[in-house]
């Protein structure tokens, strides 16, 4: 029988490198939304910790272990990215598969904050928004999860259907920032 072929959200659009800043697509093994039920926050966090070695992060933060990550993405909501969440956690939290719902990008390079300053109202200043910090905000007109994973590296998540728009907006901003070299 024919097999259904998988496609990534930004298939064929990336990678892209402009003036030392690169935009690539990441394809995590799994993304699971975890929303603890009333009064179950601590229990959910403890179980997650025993299963994956990371607790549920506080608002605007992420935790990580062995290439997997737990990212705060909104009110009472965590995304576990990179590893599957065992069904036993469903005792304490609503688990929802989001593996196919998000386009995940890595934006990397010196001056990456300047690119994002064209698109998000967040203050991404290194002293304010540090490694491991996460925020739910806007990328252009799109709802986005923005996460600093390194000195010059951000991960950005937008809805899968908007992958092409996100790449277009990021590329435009990358080109505009690169063009400012002419001002030096």
């Amino acid at each position, binding site marked *: 029988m024919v097999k259904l072929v998988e496609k990534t959200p930004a298939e064929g659009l990336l990678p892209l490198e402009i003036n030392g800043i690169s935009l690539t697509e990441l394809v995590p093994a799994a993304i699971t939304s975890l929303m603890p039920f009333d009064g179950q926050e601590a229990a959910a966090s403890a179980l997650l910790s025993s299963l994956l070695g990371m607790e549920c992060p506080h*608002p*605007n933060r992420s935790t990580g272990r062995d290439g997997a990550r737990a990212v705060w993405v*909104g*009110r009472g*909501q965590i995304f576990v990215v990179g590893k599957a969440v065992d069904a036993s956690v469903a005792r304490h939290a609503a688990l929802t598969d989001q593996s196919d719902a998000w386009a995940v990008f890595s934006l990397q390079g010196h001056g990456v904050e300047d690119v994002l300053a064209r698109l998000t*109202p967040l203050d991404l200043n290194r002293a304010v928004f540090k490694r491991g910090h996460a*925020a*739910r*905000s*806007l990328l252009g007109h799109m*709802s986005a999860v923005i996460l600093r994973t390194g000195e010059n590296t951000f991960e950005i998540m937008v809805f899968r259907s908007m992958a092409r728009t996100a790449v277009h907006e990021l590329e435009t901003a990358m080109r505009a920032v690169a063009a400012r070299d002419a001002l030096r």
Partner: protein
Amino acid sequence: MRIRCPLCGDRDSREFTCMGHETYMHRPAGEGWGPAWDSYLHLRDNPAGVTRDLWYHGAGCTAWLLVERDTTTHDILRVELASDAKRGNA
């Protein structure tokens, strides 16, 4: 304009939408139409001074916020999660 979301912190106004006065949190009892429902749905004060509105952090954490602000100075005096306020009142 900026609002300090209790979860996300200080954020630009473009992430929020305003629904209106906090009255919307206080649904009248009873299933029959009457003056209480009319008032709940349609009648609002327009204070020059302190008021409390509901704002939705739709482009952020999706929390509904209860924002106390002064309509004459635009000062924002207090922001709390609407769910906390509702539980407190219940």
